[in-house]
């Protein structure tokens, strides 16, 4: 029928070489799966003309574990931990998205304490994720010190999480029906200490990295993504907000206790790397503000409304629930036929949809700009490959 299923070899050999002996030649370079700058096992095949990038072809699948197939054979409670391993830097948010999807479909109502604690943890996780991004971003651009500063402050948050949830990275704490454990008695005190400690540190971060003339020249007007293209390429989260589109699910379709909270959503102007950078720092500030509003007003109540051994059954139908993580919009799509295991489970992950913006932003720039662009997109590769 002329549908032409192609392969990677055919795709790479599509270019032609230029003619005369004094002109430059295009060539393909492999930025392989094991590379310090690709934040995981992402392979990029670059078509270069000297130092200028002509085309970027991402090749995926080096961490494809078949999570959607695994979820078809496990009950809903057993699949919560799979979300942790997707984007491990926003583990609480993925647990929450999954639990919210199951709760909305099964019609389980929650009390205020559970919702407040979930929102608190999601905001703290957002701060933690952006801190790691900031550290790794500096490291990618050549500055090693932000990495150590970012992790120093991130470890304080990891300690707080570990006391309550029991684990440092893949917490598996927010379950359908409530939470796994109650809050640790030290939680409120430690969070308040962290807030007091961290606010002056943001000024330190600005002094260390943001005002640096080299950083500014590497980021301003680099990797511009216009708003129309961003929408068409499916970008969400800070990548879309940097291009000037005001789309934050915490404001548009609020969940948890967000309707009662006051916060701003930073929107960029031009959509270059600098906008993506300072938006994330502003988001850290806004998250600190949100945590301040919540930390003194955690209501009392039960932390788990269902018995752990109950096998949840969802009525027949298809359900789609969305949530805003640190990187973008996460959607959980469940199709159920009334049994204990889902018939089909699909994750609309933010990183998968954000990645392809690099094919529109990188061509025309230099190779060093590609590293800055890829790092400013803040992708976590297991989320792309699921």
């Amino acid at each position: 029928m002329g549908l032409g299923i192609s392969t990677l070899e055919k795709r790479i050999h599509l270019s032609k070489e230029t003619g005369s002996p004094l002109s430059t030649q295009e060539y393909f370079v492999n930025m392989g799966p094991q590379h310090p700058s690709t934040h995981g096992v992402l392979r990029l095949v670059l078509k270069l003309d000297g130092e200028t990038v002509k085309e970027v072809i991402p090749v995926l699948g080096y961490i494809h574990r078949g999570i959607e197939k695994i979820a078809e054979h496990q009950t809903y409670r057993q699949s919560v931990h799979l979300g942790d391993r997707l984007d491990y830097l926003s583990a609480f948010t993925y647990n929450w998205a999954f639990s919210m999807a199951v709760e909305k479909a099964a019609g389980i109502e929650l009390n205020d304490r559970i919702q407040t604690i979930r929102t608190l943890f999601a905001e703290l996780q957002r701060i933690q994720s952006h801190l790691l991004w900031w550290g790794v971003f500096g490291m990618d651009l050549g500055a090693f010190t932000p990495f150590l500063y970012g992790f120093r402050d991130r470890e304080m948050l990891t300690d707080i999480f570990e006391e309550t949830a029991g684990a440092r990275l893949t917490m598996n704490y927010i379950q359908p029906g409530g939470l796994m454990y109650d809050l640790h008695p030290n939680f409120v005190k430690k969070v308040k200490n962290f807030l007091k400690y961290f606010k002056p540190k943001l000024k330190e971060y600005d002094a260390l990295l943001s005002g640096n003339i080299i950083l500014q020249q590497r980021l301003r007007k680099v990797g511009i993504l216009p708003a129309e293209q961003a929408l068409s390429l499916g970008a969400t989260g800070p990548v879309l907000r940097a291009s000037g589109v005001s789309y934050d699910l915490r404001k548009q379709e609020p969940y948890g206790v967000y309707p009662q909270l006051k916060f701003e959503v930073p929107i960029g102007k031009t959509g270059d790397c600098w906008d993506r950078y300072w938006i994330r720092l502003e988001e850290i500030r806004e998250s600190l503000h949100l945590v301040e509003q919540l930390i003194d007003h955690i209501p009392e109540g039960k932390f788990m409304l269902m018995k752990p051994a109950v096998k949840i059954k969802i009525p027949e139908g298809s359900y789609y629930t969305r949530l805003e993580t640190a990187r973008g919009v996460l959607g959980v799509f469940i199709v159920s036929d009334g049994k204990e295991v889902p018939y089909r489970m699909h994750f609309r992950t933010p990183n998968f949809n954000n990645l392809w913006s690099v094919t529109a932003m990188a061509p025309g720039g230099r190779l060093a700009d590609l590293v800055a662009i890829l790092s400013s997109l803040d992708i976590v590769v297991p989320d792309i490959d699921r």
Partner: protein
Amino acid sequence: MGLTREPLIHKFPFYLEPIPGGSLVLASLDKMINWARANSLWPLTFGTSCCAIEVMMAAGASHHDLARFGAEVTRPSPRQADLLVIAGTIVKRMAPRLRTLYEQMAEPRYVIATGSCAISGGPFIYHSYTTIRGADEIIPVDVYVPGCPPRPEEFFYGLLTLQKMIKEGETIRKPGVRRRPVLAALPPGITLSQIQKEFQKLLEEKACVNMQEAQEKGKIFGRKKE
């Protein structure tokens, strides 16, 4: 004088002999080389998924400092590294690349498999069509560090176990000889097969599973047989 006659072999791999006019250092060249190798391992930056954040990045950054064990210099190129820390799940598509990386490393090279995905496939063994069940199906592993993900302190225990193994003289691997890897989480004297036997016994008592039958059907601890 302050020279002592007791051997400093616990701290340094040589004996100090005081003689008139100074002192003499007696050592075995192998022990000194092993000591130097163990205390300056250069890891390769190889992390596929979640363990990479805990084991590689958090262990190397503030609060848990990898530099104090000598393993600070992480090299992106396998030609310049001698320790391969497998952090994360290995899938079928990545397996040939892992093998290439391992073969590019120069001897003596060591491999630490951290996290349950690298040890045995982790939470993804059932119904996954791509997950390789354990990195030691691809490359020979020296030390296992269990956890999902392991704490940085657990990883340091694994690293120290590897350093002890190196200092005790396991430098060049003989071709064709496959060493048994060490599980860096057990108190000394307990082996992995002991734990497996205990686990089987427990299952038989508590879960009423006939291990013989289950193993014949090929449904546990092995591939599904036809």
